[in-house]
């Protein structure tokens, strides 16, 4: 795109992690039988009254804090009126005038440096029931009706699909690490609607916006934005006028398609929810909510960096929260985090993936992990040895020395002994020594093989290799 600049704003809904729903005591769960987790409140029966869940408020306070928003200490709920079968009350209880949070931001790391993505506001609200469309009929499941949601509305301050995708990654990571939501887009616990408009670069006003709904992955958000910008550009280039419309992303077509036009703005006739009085957030309640927040990813990044971990390893560890949480239990020790990350991301992760296990389901105690790292550092165990004993380390309740004894692993780290063996091997293989001197790399490999053979593989390969090269150069 050359002539035009795109402007992108995103509305994200995340399902809040609680035991019960926002206004009723029915279970907030996923994957249950259809219509098995509801009460008359969720079904919108006349005469029922909503009772506000305390945990939703606490989660809201956490979300506001983590996104640097200003907390609304005195707030109420509003009714958003519309007719649709997913909503039998004919209104959704949400927040219109007093959103729990306002004017915040999340910082993303773009290729051009850090950028603050501004958040306009954040609302608490109830989810509607889930409707699936089958031919001429729609099937309704009220298990989702009343599931607490936080809606996060960004300002239209993004200009590329990369910024939009990075913002969503950051939001997902923040809410996931904050234990506010699972943020599983494939299960619908994080959903986003994207507003895209384009205008000539020199223009001071925004173009006509198009809203794209129903995007099920961050990758698809990128595709949808790309396609939408191209579509709008084409319309303008043909001299036509863009119309405000709502489209949805079709993952079969890998493109956006036009949806019917729904009510907007005033047509929702928002008015205060008379069944829920004002909610006042007290200092004590705020402190209670924030006290349970775990260490967030940005703080982890700084700590891991100080421990010498590479950026790639840091991001890989953070992408797997249980590994990061595990690694954090060693922050008070002086283990080598680089070796630890290598081990966790390498052999340990592949073992866990292969066996469909989680780290906490193994017998890898804190003591064993520290011992394993120490032995690796000292050279008492080689990487090859670790591969050999890993299953026992993770599955048996015995110590590393016991496992080594059982597997007959005794790495020789006594340098004078290694030197003695090397002298012997070199004396017996004079032709190979000459080959090495003539630049034949294979000779070194052969000699190394002989050293390993002499010691039955018990010599530390790193030490042996270093010494072998040293002694060859002396000859």
């Amino acid at each position, binding site marked *: 795109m050359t002539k035009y600049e795109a402007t992108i704003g995103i509305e994200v809904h995340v399902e809040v992690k609680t035991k019960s729903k926002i206004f009723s005591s029915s279970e907030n769960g996923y994957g249950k039988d259809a219509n*098995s*987790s509801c009460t008359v409140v969720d079904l919108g029966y006349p005469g029922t009254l909503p009772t506000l869940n305390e945990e939703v408020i606490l989660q809201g306070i956490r979300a506001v804090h983590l996104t640097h928003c200003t907390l609304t200490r005195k707030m109420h709920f509003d009714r958003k009126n519309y007719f649709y079968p997913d909503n039998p009350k004919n209104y959704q209880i949400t927040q219109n005038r007093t959103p729990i949070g306002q004017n915040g931001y999340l910082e993303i790391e773009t290729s051009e440096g850090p950028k603050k993505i501004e958040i306009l506001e954040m609302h608490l609200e109830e989810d509607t029931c889930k409707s699936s469309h089958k031919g001429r009929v729609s099937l309704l499941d009220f298990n989702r009706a009343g599931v607490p949601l936080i809606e996060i509305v960004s300002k239209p301050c993004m200009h590329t699909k990369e910024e939009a995708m990075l913002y969503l990654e950051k939001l997902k990571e923040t809410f996931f690490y904050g234990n506010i939501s699972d943020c599983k887009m494939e299960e619908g616990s994080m959903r986003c609607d994207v507003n895209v408009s384009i205008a000539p670069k020199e223009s001071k006003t925004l173009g006509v916006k198009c809203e794209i709904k129903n995007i099920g992955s961050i990758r698809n958000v990128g595709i949808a934005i790309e396609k939408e910008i191209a579509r709008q550009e084409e319309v303008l280039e043909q001299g036509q006028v863009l119309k405000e419309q709502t489209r949805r992303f079709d993952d079969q077509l890998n493109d956006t398609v036009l949806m019917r036009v729904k009510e907007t703005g005033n047509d929702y006739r928002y008015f205060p929810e008379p069944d829920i009085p004002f909610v006042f957030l007290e200092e004590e309640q705020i402190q209670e909510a924030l006290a349970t927040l775990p260490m967030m990813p940005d703080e982890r990044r700084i700590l891991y960096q100080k421990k010498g971990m590479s950026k790639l390893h840091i991001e890989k560890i953070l992408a797997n929260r249980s590994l990061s949480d595990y690694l954090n239990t060693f922050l008070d020790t002086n283990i080598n985090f680089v070796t630890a990350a290598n081990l966790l991301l390498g052999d340990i992760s592949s073992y866990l993936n292969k066996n469909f296990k989680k780290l906490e389901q193994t017998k890898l105690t804190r003591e064993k992990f520290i011992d394993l790292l120490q032995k690796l550092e000292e050279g008492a165990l080689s990487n090859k040895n670790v591969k050999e004993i890993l299953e026992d380390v993770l599955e048996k309740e015995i110590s590393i020395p016991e496992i080594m004894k059982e597997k007959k692993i005794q790495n020789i780290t006594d340098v004078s002994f290694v030197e003695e063996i090397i002298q012997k091997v070199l004396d017996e293989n004079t032709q190979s020594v000459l080959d090495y001197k003539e630049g034949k790399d294979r000779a070194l490999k052969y000699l190394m093989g002989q050293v390993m053979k002499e010691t039955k593989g018990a010599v530390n390969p790193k030490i042996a290799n270093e010494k072998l090269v040293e002694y060859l150069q002396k000859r």
Partner: protein
Amino acid sequence: MKKLSVEEVKHVAHLARIQVSDEEIESYRTRLGALYEMVDGIHEIEGYSEEMMITPVEEVCSLRKDEVGAMLDGASVLSNAPKTNGKFIEVPVVINE
């Protein structure tokens, strides 16, 4: 007396998802107008504020502990539905693309 325009009546009818005939539109122009006028009267209340609309009393919302309580069994949920389909409530399709 306040009289709504034909377009205003049609818009309200659309939001309410009801069909209205031309005669009905004409009748609603004055009837709805009177209703609007009555509602407008709220602004004449002494000391009127938007907060009064939220709640006229200084009552604080009490919060419910996050615990799962009794739920309806699936059969009861479906029992009042005009039409069901397996464990789902069935309604005419509402998507219109």
